[in-house]
């Protein structure tokens, strides 16, 4: 299935399987998404190659950024009106606590979704959604350059 077809499937069924399967990096990272209580929840399945500090052990900061950027894009695709993949303008990742060697989940909130640009906040957590391990704010370009 092409990326565009996979995006259409997400819109029509809320099933992200084809979309995540069509993105090589999502497969490499073990990043998946599903609708939970009507909202997109993304998950990064723990794997040894995601570790940044083997002594603690703690997940690599970059992997948390990757999960949160992916979460925002999944949610924008689910909500979007075109099949154009949003382009990341910028992302700021803030690390709040060490992420242990376990699955990480993330949810995104649209702070503002205009016609051209969306501002999205993302929260990544492990056990307790109220105790995020990292948060991100990102801007996305929703139209072609």
């Amino acid at each position, binding site marked *: 299935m*092409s*990326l*565009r077809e996979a995006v259409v499937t997400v819109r029509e069924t809320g099933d992200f399987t084809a979309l995540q399967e*069509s*993105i*090589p*990096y*999502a*497969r*490499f*990272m073990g990043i998946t998404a599903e609708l939970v209580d009507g909202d997109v929840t993304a998950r990064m399945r723990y794997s*040894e*190659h*995601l*570790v*940044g*500090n*083997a*002594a*603690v052990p*703690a*997940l*690599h*900061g*970059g*992997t*948390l*950024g*990757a*999960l949160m*950027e*992916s979460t925002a894009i999944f949610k924008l695709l689910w909500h979007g009106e075109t099949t154009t*993949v949003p*382009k*990341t*303008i*910028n*992302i*700021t*990742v*803030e*690390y*709040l*606590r*060490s*992420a242990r060697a376990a699955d990480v989940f993330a949810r995104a909130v649209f702070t503002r979704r205009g016609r051209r640009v969306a501002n999205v906040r993302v929260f990544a957590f492990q056990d307790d959604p109220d105790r995020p*391990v*990292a948060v991100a704010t990102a801007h996305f370009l929703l139209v072609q350059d």
Partner: protein
Amino acid sequence: MSDSFLPQRDEIRRRLEGRYVGAVPHNQALNLRVVDYRPEHLSLALPYRDDLVGNPETGVLHGGCITSLIDATCGGAVIMSLAAPRRIATLDLRIDYVRPALPHQEVICDAHCYKVTRHVAFVRATAHHGDEESPIATASGTFVVFRDEGRQDDDGEST
């Protein structure tokens, strides 16, 4: 550079590749490579790979692996700036994508740790395809530097 300085540089490169790139599972999974280093500066390369592509229609690498490259390079630049080995953790990292990355090309990140205080280090970085005058991304990050090596604090992500 004099010839007598070369063995020392090779030794530093070996240590960087062994302890920083090789000993960090995710850096190794991305095949990060040391390109250049000098005090307060580090450059790492992320080789292009099909399994790191974010958009199969364009073949461009996913922003996530560029985030990991920039985080790793900035953290390494902090380590290169410290007089003694310390545990560090990223506090925040901001990345601006100033132009689209190109498919089938490796990405190089140059990071400069321009200020270290007692507990915090400040870093600026750019990511490019080999021409640093034409960046794909510019970034800035702050890192906390742990002075108490014996304790594992719960206030930051370990790099």
